[in-house]
């Protein structure tokens, strides 16, 4: 009953979702597990704190080449006799987990939202409007864990790091260029998100939205029309057709709360809504609400956030 976990650790720091996946895998196994990753990341020993005993890293793989990565995961799984393989349900995991599942004829839980109850995993379906209980009956299971679904275990401990030396075949994907868009916390990683919609009237009014996000240590997001009108960059657009996020705190300002917007944010732990229309559907999905004009409410929020920061 060995368990391994595959994570993407490229980038400047260890993603939270990777630490969650390692935690999940070691909790499923009931003991520290082997983690598999790729690229040039340093400091992988730190995954020991989340429950990894060993990290196997394929330094030669640079791009998310799903064929090389699938071979990597399957080779390690075979060597370790793994019957459970955990991945993160993000863009990288979505290319590797299903391939591994197809290759091993293993059942896949695509986007598990937590630890299983018995042998049932839960996942969101119908854009968060319902949940499905999935049972895997195949000998090997692949669990792709939704980001922000479980608390990270942070013990002591450090993992040993080993380089993968096997043959992964020729790359069929090469990265030609990476165009940076924006700085700061990437939206899917942010625990606090301050988001605004068409109620802000125009791009020139975004300074207080950004200021509030910055004071709270969060990221900014927007509704689709705001991105479509080029008031804000496209990568900020959340919802069914944009990014789906599940931060701890989502603050929505001047957003009506259309069903397609909610589909991308309704998994947030706490939702606060500021809107001047008492009939705005968003209030029905909210934990906290302020009925009022954003242009009057925002300065008060900023002032309170400054006060809070001064106190902590």
């Amino acid at each position: 009953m060995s368990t391994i976990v595959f994570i993407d650790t490229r980038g400047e720091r260890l993603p939270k979702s990777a630490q969650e996946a390692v935690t999940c895998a070691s909790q499923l196994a009931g003991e520290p597990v082997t983690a598999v990753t790729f690229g040039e990341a340093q400091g992988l020993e730190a995954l020991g704190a989340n429950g990894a005993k060993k990290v196997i890293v394929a330094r030669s793989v640079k791009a998310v080449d799903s064929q090389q990565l699938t071979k990597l995961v399957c080779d390690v799984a075979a060597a370790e006799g793994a019957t459970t393989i955990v991945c993160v349900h993000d863009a990288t995991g979505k290319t590797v987990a299903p391939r591994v599942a197809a290759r091993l004829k293993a059942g896949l839980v695509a986007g598990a939202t937590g630890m299983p109850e018995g042998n049932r995993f839960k996942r969101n379906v119908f854009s968060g409007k319902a949940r499905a209980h999935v049972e895997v009956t195949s000998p090997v299971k692949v669990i792709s864990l939704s980001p922000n679904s479980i608390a990270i275990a942070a013990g002591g401990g450090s993992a040993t790091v080993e380089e993968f030396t096997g043959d992964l075949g020729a790359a069929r994907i090469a990265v030609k260029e990476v165009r940076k868009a924006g700085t700061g916390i990437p939206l899917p990683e942010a625990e606090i998100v301050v988001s605004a919609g068409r109620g802000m009237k125009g791009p020139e009014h975004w300074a207080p939205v950004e200021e509030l996000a910055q004071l709270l240590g969060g990221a900014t997001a927007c509704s689709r029309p705001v991105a479509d009108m080029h008031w804000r960059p496209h990568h900020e657009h959340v919802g069914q057709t944009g990014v789906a996020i599940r931060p701890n705190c989502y603050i929505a300002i001047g957003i009506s709360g259309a069903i397609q917007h909610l589909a991308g944010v309704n998994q947030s732990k706490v939702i606060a809504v500021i809107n001047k229309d008492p009939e705005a559907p968003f209030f029905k999905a909210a934990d906290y609400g302020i009925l009022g004009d954003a242009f009057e409410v925002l300065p008060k929020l900023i002032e309170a956030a400054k006060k809070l920061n001064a106190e902590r």
Partner: protein
Amino acid sequence: MKILVLLSQVPDTTARIAFTNGDTQYDGNGVTFIMNPYDEWYALVRALELKEAKGSGSVTTVTVGGADTEATIRKGLAIGADDAVRIDAQPTDALQVAELIASYAKDKGFDLVLAGKETIDHNGGVVGAMVAELLDMPYVALASKLDVNGDSATVERDVPGGVEVLEVQLPLALSAAKGMAEQRIPNMRGIMAARTKPLSVVAAASTTNAASTVKFELPPAKGTVKMIPAEEAGKLIELLHSEAKVI
């Protein structure tokens, strides 16, 4: 260039969500079914654009589903696909759907296999990658741009903090997300032509039974919203900090 588009049918975005048979099945009673928006707007339309730009090739759609999906499949033909295949089976799990599509597509020589980002009911986002594996093709998830140049393709995808531009060898499979193309409304000529375009029905091959949804549930109802007077808006920050403990 031969292009295969994976086309699924889903309940309308605004459809009521309810379950029957002891909460084991979606209750489609009285629900309007549509073509999965990502398959339609992004995968299918981009496939047609690539074919048109080249002036040759073909666009085939494949759907795993019962006879009730044929109106949706005809709509794909009306938008411009050349022919369509329906694999006669009720979808139960991503691996089952992928194995059925792969067993139809293997040896057909498709250069491109385009899936949508995800189905809006199942929300897995995984069938395309499974098909890619079974057909031994490279795969890019959540692509926002696709251009073909000879025997390779340039694909863009959003990554945290930016956009990655990839060069990928053909044949290639991908899942299509926002940015790939714009919706096309079928015109009268398309609708007429669709009536006589080939829609073949193939029997389902045998598949692996590895995972199944044993139950659905609705999320617990939200408690009522706690309203804060606008004049005391600052209180929201205090409550998020001391009560909800999220900031």
